């Protein structure tokens, strides 16, 4: 530690001055006195850049921090007394490099994740009641509209559902065929179904990301996309319902749909939150409001991504294995209860500690 301490008195160069035959410039003397320390810091920074701060010993890390502040000090003095451009440029880049090493993120990934899961996400969800309401409202309204329209006139189905997604499941298909898609046995159309669920997953992640990110444009695109997703859902349900398969398709959708559709609504909520910040910034400027709201919105997006991954696993493994509608309902809505429980109860703190945290 002490070996890095630099004598702050510039006068200490006076001996040099008097002793040397050629009187040095003040700035040259300043540099001569400190150069060794800069080079030492340079060495430490180079090692930390290569192997991270873990490559340094305890004492070296201390020297790094002290050396960084000294170099900052030197830089601000050098700017005032020296016209040597090379020196100022060197100090500037040395300080920048040291800054980037000293102010690197200090948290471990594990700590970050657990903090996010235990506190960050549930708290963010509880803070965004209004956007969540908008998100779920969009989906429910869409589903309701789709259901009503398709119940009265099945040809609406072709308007709502893109052909790639419907596969062969259209109102023209026979009830037996539709039943076989619900209780699909891999024997006769396994490949088709696998490709379909894979398509659904990539489709849904794409949709969720779009829904979230487009929310910046005053929530409208988010709302429309979610509403449209609801329309497809409602249309599908109406079609199966008319063939007398309402209960079965409800179970088939529930097992992964509870998680997946909730994820889409949550993505929409994140986007809607951003849009609301642009629309109603309150006392802040719009940019500030957007940046502030982004904290919660990003957490909602992470939650949506997490739920989509879980939904994909359920879809890929469980949906084919579990054929009984009762079990499908239990697993699907059990997941729903789990999500609600986690989001409502996670990260609650005592009143006293919350008061100090604010």
């Amino acid at each position, binding site marked *: 530690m002490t070996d890095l301490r630099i004598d702050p008195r510039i006068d200490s160069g006076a001996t040099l001055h008097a002793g040397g035959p050629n009187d040095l410039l003040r700035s040259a003397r300043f540099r001569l006195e400190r150069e060794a320390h800069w080079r030492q810091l340079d060495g430490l920074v180079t090692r930390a850049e290569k192997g991270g701060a873990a490559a340094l010993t305890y004492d070296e890390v201390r020297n790094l921090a002290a050396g960084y502040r000294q170099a900052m000090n030197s830089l601000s003095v050098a700017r005032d007394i020296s016209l040597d451009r*090379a020196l100022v440029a060197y100090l*500037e880049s040395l*300080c920048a490099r040291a800054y*980037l090493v000293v102010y690197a993120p200090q948290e471990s*990934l594990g700590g*970050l994740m657990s903090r996010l899961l235990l506190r960050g996400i549930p708290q963010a969800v509880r803070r965004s009641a209004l956007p969540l309401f908008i998100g779920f409202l969009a989906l429910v309204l869409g589903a309701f509209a789709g259901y009503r329209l398709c119940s009265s006139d099945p040809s609406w189905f072709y308007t709502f559902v893109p052909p790639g997604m419907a596969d062969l499941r259209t109102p023209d298909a026979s009830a037996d065929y539709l039943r076989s898609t619900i209780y699909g046995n891999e024997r006769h159309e396994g490949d088709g179904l696998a490709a379909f*669920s*894979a398509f659904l997953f*990539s489709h849904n992640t794409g949709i969720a990301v779009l829904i979230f990110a487009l929310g910046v444009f005053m929530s409208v695109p988010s709302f429309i996309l979610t509403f449209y997703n609801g329309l497809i859902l409602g249309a599908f349900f109406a079609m199966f319902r008319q063939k007398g398969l309402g209960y079965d398709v409800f179970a088939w959708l529930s097992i992964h749909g509870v998680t997946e559709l909730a994820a889409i609504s949550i993505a929409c909520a994140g986007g809607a939150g951003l849009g609301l910040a642009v629309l109603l910034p309150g006392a802040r400027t719009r940019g500030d409001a957007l940046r502030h709201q982004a904290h919660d919105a990003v957490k909602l997006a992470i939650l949506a991504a997490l739920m989509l991954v879980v939904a994909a696993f359920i879809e*890929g493994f469980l949906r084919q294995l579990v054929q009984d509608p009762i079990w499908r309902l239990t697993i699907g809505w059990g997941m729903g209860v789990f999500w609600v429980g986690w989001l409502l109860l996670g990260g609650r703190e005592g009143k006293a500690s919350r008061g100090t945290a604010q």
Partner: protein
Amino acid sequence: MREPKQSNQSVSDGKNGERIQQFIPPEGVPIALAIASLGSRLGAQILDIILTALVILVCALAIVFTGGLPTNATTILIILLGFLLRTPYYVLSELIWNGRTLGKRITGIRVINVDGRRLTPHQVTARNLMKEVEIFTPVGLLFTIGSQSALEAWLTVLWLLAVVIVPLANRRRQRIGDMIAGTLVVDNPRSVLLSDLALTAPAAQSSQPAFEFLPEHLDIYGKYELQTLEDVLRDTTKKPNTEEIVKIVRTITRRIRYEEPVKPGQELTFLNEFYRAQREHLESLKLFGKARENKYHEHTKTEARKLV
């Protein structure tokens, strides 16, 4: 004293055409960082896409050839992998390597926090989530442009244009994600300590300087001319007695009205000594609060007097 300026006014143009961001760390001493060029950012992005695509390919082949899983699960696993190697890859790598993905490491750029604090996980996540809208989706749409209707094709083109224009249109070359997250992409600083010209000049070692400069000789030039001379002297490609050096010496002696003739072969010594004397003079002036930016200092002084 330097005022901590508003961050959006703190961008200036550097001498080699790069843009310099005045960046204020918590210690309060502004540091200049060069804002990364769009070329190196594009390069980093392309490298990252190639690397992640390679990883997905290798893993997919491994999963398919080891077999053992039903087709359905295999497809889901590969798609999940593709999902994880998009935004999560960028977020995690920028968290672990402090603002650098593999591509950024190769091209020598990194992400920093605009307001001078350390990069937060929130910022990294926010800027990379927007990457999905700014890069992946429009580029993906571009690949399917053949099968799109005219309206969709126009929308895709518009989208791409909007995404490309944003970093071109602002001085800090931030894309939308950077603006939302409050981040900035800069070149990795590299530091080389060049020798001090006032020490290494050959005449500085000899006790008797060959040239004598009077105060009126040194009152002409300012900081800008001094540092231009510094660049000339540091340029190792210039040999003594070349035409350029002779010309510089002639210009300087004429401008400062230096009476003694400079003998041929002595030009470089003259320049070195003049540099040293001029720097000493300007530095002591600066200490007394009379900083001289360039040779027009007399002119600006009279201008100021006129204004008063």
